[in-house]
């Protein structure tokens, strides 16, 4: 009898120790590796990342890259995994994060990140990035992440065919917008395509409308908590946004943002406001610029560039710190950025990208990036923290439906009171 108990216990013990042994041996797999964590699992972004890996292997053949990706949920799933790993003291060597407040408020203020100013300084890259960009990625005078790319948020895509049919010009101001929108509406064509089955697409549109009314300085002040939401210009922006909802496609809530961009190229809608990853989408679908689609800055924001950026940082206690520094140096370098961006469909965050590698749209974006006032995007985590953005998205979800400006202003203000930097 006793024997049997002992055997049983032994088996149980072995089973449990084996589980634990598995865990520790995984954690101690210490060879010359570099683990890069991202949610880039498909399409141009995954291919772009691969191109950067190839460049890395060429420079450092001895280092093995572990490509740790978590798919789904527009990065939410990956962020959940990342949060668990960071809090559990098991950070990846480096991870993808939107530059700006998404990185700073979540990871830098809470003390999880090491500054990487020295990476830029050691490589002599400090003056290769625009000052506005350095501001956005800095906290208390130190740079905390290396931006590998720049996307533009305030782009209006339009259908040249539809505009030509009604003899119209793409709108330059909000007043222009409503004038042309009225013509399209009268002819039974949705003037503005919106695909907000994920609500950030509506927030994305809102940031352009706010910028059009406030201009860059007040726009920044609003997200720093120094302008009240009942400010006259902000209110008129919300009024215009509500008015714009009268010109959108009926099925907006069922569409993804790319479907809405597609509506424009297919001639089903006249205009769409979406980030410039839409250009990459158009190219990949074989739509021709100037024929099926073209672009202007969103009405009233010409001369401004709302930017968002993917970046990589250096977590404290990264297992392979030296390799991360090599990786970050590559991310900041011209070779790295010119390998990644033409494939991802974005422009380099450096000012000296090799123009010949980029297509027509991206070249134009590079021109604007070099000359415009640069402000951070709200909808993509550059201007405000994640908790604030989540709340704004919730408010937008109702605002898009009930179009109640006064109620929205009260709620936006309450969110700002709770989350704006003090």
């Amino acid at each position: 009898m006793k024997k049997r108990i002992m055997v049983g216990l032994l088996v149980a013990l072995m089973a449990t120790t084996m589980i634990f042994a598995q865990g520790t041996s995984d954690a101690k797999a210490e060879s010359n590796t570099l683990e890069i964590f991202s949610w880039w699992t498909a399409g141009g972004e995954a291919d772009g990342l691969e191109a950067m890996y190839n460049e890395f292997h060429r420079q450092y053949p001895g280092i093995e890259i572990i490509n740790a990706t978590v798919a789904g949920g527009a990065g939410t799933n990956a962020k959940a995994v990342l949060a668990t790993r960071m809090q559990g003291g098991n950070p990846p060597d480096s991870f993808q994060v939107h530059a700006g407040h998404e990185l700073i408020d979540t990871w830098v203020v809470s003390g999880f990140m090491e500054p990487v100013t020295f990476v830029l300084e050691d490589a002599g890259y400090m003056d290769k990035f625009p000052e506005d960009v350095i501001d956005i990625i800095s906290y208390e005078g130190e740079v905390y992440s290396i931006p590998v790319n720049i996307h533009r948020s305030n782009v209006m895509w339009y259908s040249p065919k539809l505009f030509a049919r009604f003899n119209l010009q793409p709108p330059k101001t909000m007043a222009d917008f409503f004038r042309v929108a009225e013509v399209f509406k009268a002819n039974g064509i949705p003037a503005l395509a919106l695909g907000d089955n994920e609500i950030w697409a509506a927030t994305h549109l809102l940031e352009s409308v706010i910028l059009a009314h406030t201009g860059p300085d007040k726009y920044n002040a609003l997200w720093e908590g120094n302008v009240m939401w009942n400010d006259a210009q902000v209110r008129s922006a919300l009024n215009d946004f509500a008015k714009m909802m009268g010109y959108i496609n009926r099925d907006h809530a069922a569409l993804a943002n790319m479907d809405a961009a597609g509506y424009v190229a297919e001639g089903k809608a006249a205009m769409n406001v979406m980030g410039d990853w839409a250009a990459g989408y158009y190219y990949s679908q074989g739509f021709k610029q100037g024929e099926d689609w073209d672009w202007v800055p969103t009405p009233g924001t010409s001369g401004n560039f709302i930017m968002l950026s993917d970046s990589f940082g250096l977590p404290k206690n990264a297992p392979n710190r030296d390799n991360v520094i090599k990786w970050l140096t590559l991310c900041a370098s011209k070779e790295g950025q010119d390998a990644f961006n033409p494939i991802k469909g974005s422009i380099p965050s450096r000012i000296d990208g090799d123009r010949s590698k980029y297509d027509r749209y991206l070249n134009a974006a590079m021109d604007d990036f070099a000359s415009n006032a640069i402000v951070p995007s709200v909808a993509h985590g550059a201007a405000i923290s994640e908790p604030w953005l989540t709340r704004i998205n919730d408010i937008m979800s109702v605002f898009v439906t009930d179009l109640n400006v006064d109620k929205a202003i009260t709620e936006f203000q309450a969110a700002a009171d709770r989350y704006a930097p003090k």
Partner: protein
Amino acid sequence: MYCAKKDRRIAVLILLPMLLVLFIFVYGFIAWSLRISFTDWNSILPNMTSVGFENYQRLFSSQRFQTDIRNTIFFTLFFLVICIVGGFFLSYLLYSKLRGESFLRTIYLFPLSLSFVVTGVLWRWIFSPEVGINSLFRMMGFEATFGWFTSTYSIGGFNVALIALIIAASWQYLGYTMAMFLAGLRGIPDQLIESAQIDGAGELAITWYIILPLIKPITFSAMIVLGHISLKIFDLAYVMTGKGPAFVTDFPGLFMFETTFRGNHYAEGAAISIIMLILVAVVIVPYLISTLRGDSE
């Protein structure tokens, strides 16, 4: 007796690791969530300052959570009624020796083999307002403008967008309830029904006075199984509709996932999950009590 006692000790020993794991990783973490829901942990860094019921207050005053609770109640109600009434009806048809029974049974049961994720993708396409079932109606010459899950109409607090979700969920679980009822019906002794027939009872009377009372325990179990699925619903809504415009298809599970992992509101997320736990407990605990009582009798 000596042997039984020893067997018992072995049983306890063998069960011990499992029980330990259960207590730590299920009940321990429920307790931990409960504790977090009373703290101010609303960023990445743990902050264990106690704030009393503030998280709960904030939830109940937020429009999103109010809509979520309403949605959950309506969804559960319709889902239960459709599955139970429909499931009973189908099983009754099969029970009455319908031809091709095994074929039909397989067809009805088939959706259950899919996961909610697959069901969600499927029905999202079907109910998509421009390309789905609406275009079918348009081909037949109707003007189909109903937005299905994107509709923002609300009748007395019931968001009509939920209809699409209710149909999808019922489609998946109708066959399952049918199978449960069918097992119950097959368990009814033929003599009972035959003697009733000899006494001159009609089919309706037999159904009402004999069959329904006898399958009451099955109805009860079906309600519990379906009820806890619908109260915790996440995957179907997440894949099929998301939270929808103005939260017409939002549920506490979606809210909890977003506020915790996108918004870093850990305490608020914990509060939502505690409320969901209470909702499910309201359904399950009476059931457990009644089964335990039944066992001891």
